């Protein structure tokens, strides 16, 4: 989907680890305000690709722009303002175990905006309220189930009012009900706050219900790029194999 003013642009991105190539020239664009899925088999480099946007992985070659700003080659310090505008919800439960839910959400506010923890807590409480999770505030992450932990992680990512959110496999490891609730949360967040959502996923049901666009990675290349309807109807053998392997679960949810 080429447009005049995409939110994120990956051009000819090459990434290798210890000589082993993961991405060999990936180019794709993410439109402002869209829910953009990145799909592909495990280990194809989906997580690595989105982490380049916030400086957790540094590409060997290519260009990546966020809202027109080149991010390849930025220093750790130069990524701080980018991370404030583009947050990430990690695959695993990355809440800080020793902090309460409220303090987990308050942490990025206190750090990024350099306000006192008391002020940050007040703002964090509002964010939790907006996600109907205020009652969880005093709990420790370990006492929450995976679905609620994911909800809190999304709240923490939203705490800074970012313009974009990167979700790394948000429904993996959740039961179907929690997974669909998480889908709704992603969609609502996208609509209510207008954030651009990049969703790394294997979950075809998620794509079907909330996706605007899907980029499918295969063997270090962008293999398919288009709207979900075209993805499900694709005749390409690799895409078909992926869709068919996952479609049994789609039917049951």
């Amino acid at each position: 989907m080429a447009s005049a003013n995409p939110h994120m642009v990956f051009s000819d991105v090459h990434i290798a680890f210890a000589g082993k190539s993961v991405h060999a020239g990936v180019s794709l664009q993410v439109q402002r305000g869209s829910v953009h899925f990145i799909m592909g088999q495990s280990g194809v480099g989906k997580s690595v690709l989105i982490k380049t946007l916030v400086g957790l992985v540094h590409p060997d070659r290519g260009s990546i722009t966020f809202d027109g700003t080149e991010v390849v080659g930025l220093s750790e310090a130069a990524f701080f303002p980018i991370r404030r505008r583009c947050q990430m919800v990690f695959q695993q439960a990355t809440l800080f175990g020793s902090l309460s839910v409220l303090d987990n959400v308050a942490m990025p506010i206190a750090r990024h905006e350099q306000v006192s923890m008391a002020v940050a807590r007040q703002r964090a409480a509002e964010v939790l309220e907006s996600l109907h999770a205020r009652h969880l505030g005093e709990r420790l992450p370990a006492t929450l189930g995976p679905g609620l932990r994911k909800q809190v992680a999304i709240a923490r990512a939203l705490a800074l009012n970012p313009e974009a959110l990167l979700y790394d496999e948000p429904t993996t490891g959740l039961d179907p009900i929690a997974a669909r609730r998480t889908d709704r949360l992603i969609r609502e967040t996208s609509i209510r706050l207008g954030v651009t959502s990049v969703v790394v996923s294997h979950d075809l049901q998620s794509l079907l219900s909330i996706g605007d666009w899907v980029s499918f990675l295969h063997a270090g290349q962008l293999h398919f790029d288009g709207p979900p309807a075209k993805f499900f109807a694709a005749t390409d053998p690799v895409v078909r194999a992926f869709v068919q392997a996952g479609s049994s679960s789609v039917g049951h949810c």
Partner: protein
Amino acid sequence: MVPISASVFFLRPLASLGRWGQWGGRQVQAVLRLGGAVLRNLPHAEPAAIWQQARDLGNRSMFFVVVVMAFVGAIMVVQASMQAQRIVGDLSIIGPGFMQLLVREFAPTIVALMIAARYGAGVAAALGAMQVTEQVDALRLCSAEPISYLVVPRVLGGLTSMPAIVVVGGAVAFVSGGLAGHFGFGIGWTSYFRTGFVVPSDVAIGFCKAAAFGVAVPLVSSWAGLSARGGARGVGQATTRAVIGSSVAVLFLDLVFGAAGYVAQRW
């Protein structure tokens, strides 16, 4: 041309020694880079976090240190007394000699090796688990620089608590040695409990060693934890690397300080 046997028995081990050397050099560089980052982040150190780490180090290691140092003190005095009895027949120098040895050498080194095993493994496991579960990345997304948040308090906590634990460990070893000497060999209390051999430079060297080990153990262990990759296995490997790496660092620094102390005394 080199004969085949020579290449197999001589060159090949040499080549792998070279590879090991290169590998070791890279690890040392990585630790030193982390040390540099710790120095740059020192201004942001939070006293409460440092105090918490210092306490954690003490809580984790104190019992272990006391038990082991009690045995070490008794064993060394028994061995030394047996030899002294055979050779010079005079046991009156055992106490002050042992005291000097403890202050200069054994208390800092043995205590630091124990802390490398106990606290170093714990640090690597904690930071390694955070690394492989992406919590370190999550910290960076929260604009909390992982080094100032995770490593600086541990390094400064080690710097402050290691000397204190060394003093306790050394005292325990000296007292248990005194008990063993008195009841096993009849060494008099007053001839054992003397500090006459210890000069200020011994105390200075012992203190510098304890402080340096207090920095080295958490630094190496944090490096091991933060470089963990790939799930639970990676965390296990990180703890092993932390214990081996920080033990080697302690012994290496011990040698450096020993040599420096020797040179300084000759001057």
